[in-house]
């Protein structure tokens, strides 16, 4: 009994310690953004890596999400209302939820893991220490360009994902379900709301921050050779995915205003 209480106690203390370290790491990184030097070349490379190379994954995800959504909503509604309801539903679901959340989770899997593995390997092979001995702040050199790239490129990815997802819904609705293309497009444009798109892009920006900070934090604090890097990579993906889902609820509540 005493052992169980002790284990629970140490688990709570460890969790609080990790959360505290993570908050401290995030604050140091955010403060670091405001001061020089800024490594522009690394930032541009990271934008290409996080943004451009994630485009196929996010594009495929949102395309099929839009297509499936069209089929599912058709199956669940009155066929006479399909031409108005389906575009409405697709626009709402894609712009506010599916593109940012699915896109965020896909990027968390791809980028969170790669950042944690890269920085983790640098940590266990003393490359981060080498940076410090060469008068280079590893937070500014490794962490800040990745965080900024995540915050900036994820909304762009999600915006493209919105378009592809809506297009996916259009393709299925018109070619498979036989809806009128012109009326479908009109209804889609009417259904688009600025606040809906902005809420999706805000989410994407926050998810970009979560994914990159988790990848950087886990990699930066990894230890124990290859096994430690593997653990850091897994933790980065798992924790950023969980935090994306939690943040999604919080941001949705803020925008819905319930």
């Amino acid at each position, binding site marked *: 009994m005493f052992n169980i209480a002790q284990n629970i106690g140490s688990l709570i203390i460890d969790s609080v310690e990790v959360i505290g370290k993570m908050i401290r790491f995030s604050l140091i990184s955010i403060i670091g953004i405001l001061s020089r030097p800024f490594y522009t070349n690394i930032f541009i490379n990271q934008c290409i890596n996080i943004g451009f190379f994630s485009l196929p994954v996010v594009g495929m995800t949102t395309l099929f999400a839009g297509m499936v959504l069209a089929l599912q909503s058709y199956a669940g509604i009155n066929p006479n209302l399909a031409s108005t309801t389906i575009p409405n539903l697709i626009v709402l679901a894609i712009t506010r939820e599916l593109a940012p959340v699915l896109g965020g989770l896909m990027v968390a899997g791809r980028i969170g893991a790669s950042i944690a593995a890269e920085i983790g390997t*640098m940590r266990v092979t003393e*490359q981060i*220490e080498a940076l410090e*001995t060469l*008068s280079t702040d590893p937070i500014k050199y490794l962490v800040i360009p990745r965080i900024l790239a995540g915050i900036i490129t994820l909304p762009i990815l999600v915006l493209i994902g919105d378009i592809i997802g809506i297009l996916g819904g259009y393709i299925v609705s018109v070619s498979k379900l036989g809806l009128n293309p012109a009326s479908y497009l009109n209804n889609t444009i009417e259904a688009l709301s600025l606040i809906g798109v902005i809420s999706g892009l805000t989410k994407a920006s926050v998810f970009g921050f979560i994914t990159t900070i988790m990848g950087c934090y886990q990699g930066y604090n990894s230890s124990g050779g290859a096994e430690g890097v593997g653990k850091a990579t897994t933790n980065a993906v798992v924790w950023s995915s969980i935090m994306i889902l939690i943040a999604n609820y919080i941001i949705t509540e803020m925008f819905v205003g319930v």
Partner: protein
Amino acid sequence: MDKIVYKNVSKSFDDLIVLDDFSLNIKKGDSVVIIGGSGTGKSVSLKCLLGLLTPDNGSIKVDEQETVGISSEYRNKINENIGMLFQNGALFDSMTVIENVCFGLKSGKGISDRKSRKIGIECLDKVGLDKSILDKYPSDLSGGMRKRVALARAIATNPEIILFDEPTTGLDPITASTIDNLIVDTVRKMGVTTITVTHDLASVRRIADRVALLYKGKIEWIGTVQEMDETDNPFVKQFINGSSKGPIHWARGNK
């Protein structure tokens, strides 16, 4: 004048005491080699000097200026004058050889690409490497070549102090001897102060002006190479003879 002064430095990790009242004075231009078994705190002493680890207690001065508890900006300035050769080279594996060597010049000192490339090529030449490897990646190089590139990176910024963490570990005797000679040649020409951490006695004899034996977090003995060979100190004798019998017990956990 003492270039580096460690005074009563202590460092522990949880319950493991690694440095315990560690004191060492190093004169300008001196080549001090710290010997001792694995896990006795040799590398920790170097990392404390570089600010990679913060001592729990004590003071470390460089040019009479305190380096413990200073701001990161001031730390960067101090580190501009310190070069480090890591045990496994710690070359940036996503960068080419020339990018590695020039990194400290460009990122740390803000020297232009063209000028830093010229200096980088000169440094590679000093360690016996030609232009054919400039665009190769560290993974394309042998262990000895990686050590040479790491040495070129360490000397590129023209530091006043260079730290060598087990420079010959994992190398065959001939390559190890070549690296030692490179260290002696390069360093003597530059007139820098060096601290080398090793347990390779052949290397000690080639590099050291003074030898310090670290045991249980303290300097147990210090003297010249000749004094090391002639001393009756039981710790030194046991270490030189590689005997398991004597006062030294290398079991970790110097609680």
